[in-house]
Structure formats: structure tokens, C-alpha cells
């Protein structure tokens, strides 16, 4: 591999990390409260509200149904509004975050829903209010699942970020498509795949260790 290719690989790795990290963080910040809202407003939840639950569910399902490549293009006006341009790495973060947020919201919802109702009863019986239940019960008890779900989301984002090459975002996936696939440079392809494997394994390993430390069940 030439030094130029090597530098390209490094730059692509950085772009992938940037896209995945930034959009992952955004999906955590918005997805977790959204997942929480789904659980709280669900039937039997502590803030049961069929209307809000139905509307949130429909919005989430709507975004999740659109193939990412379509979303990437459809969101161009929004991206331009937020970032100022529709091209490049930063521009890709917007559609990636918008796609990952509802995805992560559903994952967080599943973890939060599995918290034993008895624990909520116990804290209500102590005189706790809704906020206490969220802070002392739902989030801490679901935390291992919330973290494990975040790991899954990050790995999924690495895959999705390959498509962001379509709007010139760069990244490892884009490198593999343009050099490895379209120009038949097998070395590049193998190198990219190897880096991706290491990246995915690394994220998964970190996530698993964190879950292990958090899980006291």
C-alpha cells in the first residue's frame, strides 16, 4: 500500500469515527428521552397517555421505515439549514443522527420496559414522584441495557455511514466502495475491512466491559 493510500485510510477512519461518534451522541441525547417518553406514556405507565404514545410511536415508525439512502437525500434541505452545506462529513451527521435517534429510542424503550413494575411500586410506596421514579428506578435499573443498546447503535451507525459517501462524506465505507470495489484495488478493500473489523470489535468490547461493570443483577 502506498503512503498516499495509507494517509487516505487514516483520514477515512477519522471521518468514520467522527460521523459515528457525533451522530451516536446525538441519538443518545434525543433517543433516550424519547424511549423514556414511550415507556411513561404507554398503557400502564406512570404517565399513561394514549395520544402522545400513539403520535410518538407513529413518528418513530415513520422515520424507521424510510431506507437510509432515501433519508440522506430527502433530508438535504434540513441538513443545509443546520450545517450550512449538504456535502461532506459534517453534513452526513445530520441524516445519520436523525436515522439513529428513533432506532435508539426503540432500543432504549425495550430496556426501560423490562424494569420490574414492583420496583416502581416500591418507590411509589416510599412517597416518590414520577421524577424520582425516572431518576432512581427506571434509568439506573435499565442502565446496562441502555449502554448495551448504545453499543449496538454505534455499530449500526458505522455500517450506515458507508452510504454517506453518496453526499461526499468520506469515511471507511466510502473508501471501500470507491477504491476497493469500483477500482478493483483488493488491498484497499482488505485493509478497510480489517480496520472496520477492529473498530467494531473495539466498540463492542468497550461496551461489553462497561455493561459488565454496571450490571449488578
Amino acid at each position, binding site marked *: 500500500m502506498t503512503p498516499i493510500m495509507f494517509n487516505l485510510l487514516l483520514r477515512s477512519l477519522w471521518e468514520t469515527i467522527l460521523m459515528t461518534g457525533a451522530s451516536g451522541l446525538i441519538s443518545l441525547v434525543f433517543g433516550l428521552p424519547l424511549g423514556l417518553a414511550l415507556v411513561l406514556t404507554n398503557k400502564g405507565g406512570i404517565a399513561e397517555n394514549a395520544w402522545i404514545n400513539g403520535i410518538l410511536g407513529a413518528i418513530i415508525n415513520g422515520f424507521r421505515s424510510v431506507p437510509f439512502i432515501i433519508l440522506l437525500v430527502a433530508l438535504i434541505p434540513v441538513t443545509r439549514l443546520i450545517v450550512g452545506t449538504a456535502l461532506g462529513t459534517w453534513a452526513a451527521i445530520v441524516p445519520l443522527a436523525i436515522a439513529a435517534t428513533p432506532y435508539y429510542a426503540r432500543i432504549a424503550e425495550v430496556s426501560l420496559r423490562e424494569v420490574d413494575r*414492583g420496583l416502581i*411500586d*416500591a*418507590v411509589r*410506596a*416510599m*412517597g416518590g414522584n414520577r421524577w424520582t421514579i425516572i431518576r432512581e428506578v427506571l434509568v*439506573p*435499573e435499565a442502565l446496562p441495557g441502555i449502554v448495551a443498546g448504545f453499543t449496538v447503535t454505534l455499530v449500526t451507525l458505522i455500517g450506515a455511514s458507508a452510504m454517506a459517501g453518496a453526499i461526499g462524506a468520506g469515511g471507511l465505507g466510502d473508501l471501500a466502495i470507491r477504491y476497493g470495489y469500483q477500482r478493483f484495488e483488493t488491498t484497499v478493500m482488505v485493509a478497510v475491512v480489517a480496520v472496520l473489523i477492529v473498530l467494531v470489535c473495539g466498540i463492542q468490547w468497550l461496551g461489553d466491559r462497561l455493561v459488565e461493570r454496571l450490571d449488578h*443483577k
Partner: protein
Amino acid sequence: MNSIVTASVIETPQATAEAVVRLVDVHRHFGTTPALDGVALTVHKGEILGVIGRSGAGKSTLIRCLNGLERPDRGLIEIEGRSIVGLDEKELQPLRRRVGMIFQHFNLLASRTVEENVALPLKIAGVAKTERLRRAHELLELVGLAGKAKAYPSSLSGGQKQRVGIARALAARPALLLSDEATSALDPETTRSILALLKDINRKLGLTIILITHEMEVVRSIADRVAVIDAGRIVEEGQVWSVFADPKAPITRSLLSGSRPQLPEHIAARLSPTSGEEAIISIDMAGLAAQGAVFADLSAALPQSFRLVHGGIDHIQNQPVARFFIAVPMRDPALKDKVLQFLKARSARVEVLGYDTDHV
């Protein structure tokens, strides 16, 4: 322990003690099926009340109404003289700090250490961290788990988990402790130690306890009074020993069947309702009636008049409760009536269950 000490504390407890809980005509329906169908109940300060019933009898709904986890459709519920019906979630919060609760499955937070679990009610009440941890350690000492403060619940046994549950329920110095099948998930030995702990706390702190259970043994070992609930109604209520001695409702008899002597099945199976070689008679005596030498006297007055088939004397709340089955030979038809008369004169409740056709 209690914050209100009035001048009238010289009064005897229970009968005249203030009511901690008062329920009048409480109804609660789930769909069309009534879970509570006109429940009336009063629990006095310092008392342990056992509420017993089969699963689905409404006992869980009843206990959950006492801290507002469940709301009645109508009726009056007073805790320490304050009506709690119609209070919203926010208004219920101060009340709930006066009422501790323990659960069948302990409901401890897996993400918190033992001391953090115990301190949680105080955290919710806004007590400073050092103070609530001090109180948590004091309570862990009380329940015998001082060495486990930093452990996580998952490393504890069932009995230890329930001890943590009890410590947590006591953290905010409640006036009333609700126990929702707290020993149903525990083995018999652990159950005994948890019940002993509850009794101890009741004595030491003068804490009023309401426990619901489907096991008569639980009621028997620690309750002062028992209320039997069936299909959402209290069908029988009284001092534990007197209910054990003379259960009136069929459901009470059925719940008691494992706790009091029963006529052995092979004998019951061959009883004839009309005639046989021996009359099988059940004898129930309690309190003073069970303290005399009844059988020795019967033997002296009417020699050769009976033989013992089965039975025994139990002691509940320090009162003897006796239940025996005797067989009286039928060769002299007058003998049976003489025996019955003798026993009735000794305040025993007697019943001719049938006639054994097959005794050798």
C-alpha cells in the same frame, strides 16, 4: 418512637388505643368483578393484624389501598385519622412516608448497594446524605445485616433481601408497616426468622403491622388479630387464638385445615351418618376450658366410655387450643349422650361426625 405522646397513655392498649387504620365500606371493582366488596376494618396502634385469604380474594388490593397504590371506588379509608380517599398522587406522598411496605419479591433496586436501598426513602424525603447513611446503618444493625452495607442485593439470600426490605420500610420511621406476602417466597426456616424479626420490631418500636398472607402459619406465629377475606369481604375477624379455636366461616375452616388436627382420612372415609360400632366425636376446647384434666375426669366419671383417636393441644398467643377426636362405643346407646353432656358441661364444643362401621 412516636412523635405524639399524649397524657392519656396510661390506657390499656388495643381496645382503647387510637386507630391507625380505619376502613368503612370500601369497594373496589376491576371491570365487573369486585376485588373489595364493602370492607370494614379497624387496626389499632401497636397491633399486628393478619389478613388471610386465598389468592384472588382481594387481600392484595386491600393492602394496596392503604397507601394509595390502589384507589377504592368508594368507601372511607383513614390512616392516623386522616382520610386518604380522593387524594392525588402528590398529596399521597407525605402519607406514604408514614406507611412502610415490604413485598413478596423484595423489590430491591439491583443497581444500588444495600445501604443505598435502605437510605432511598430518606433520599426521597430530602434527608442529607450523611444523616441518611447513618440511619441506614442503624437499621441494618437492627435487622442483623450490619456487615452487608456495601453489598449489592444480588449477592444476598432471599431472607437477607427481605431483611433489607424491612430496614428500608422502616427508614422513614413509619407509623404503619404493610407486609404483602413478605414470606411467601421464602423457605420455612427463613420465614420463621423473618416473622420473628417483624414481631421483635413490633415490640421494640410499637409499630403497627398489617400483613397479608395465604398461610395460616404466618398469622398463627405473629398476629394478634386475624381477618379472613373471601371474595372481597371480611367473613371472619377476631383474636387469632379464638378464631383458631372456633372458626365459623367455611373458608376459615378450609384455610385452617393444615394447621389444626383433622380426622384421619381413612377413618373419615368409612364413617356412616346413621349407625356403626363407634361414634366419632370431635371436641374443641380453648382457653380455660382446655386447661383442666378433661379426659382424666371423663375417664373417672364414665369408665370405658371412650378411646382417643387423634388430636392435640396447640398454644396460640399463650392460650391453649385443643382439638381431639374420640370414639365412643355404641353398645350402650345412652353412653354417647352422657359423654356429650359431660363435655358440654366442661365448655367444650362437641360434634358427632358419624359412626365408624369398621372398627375392630
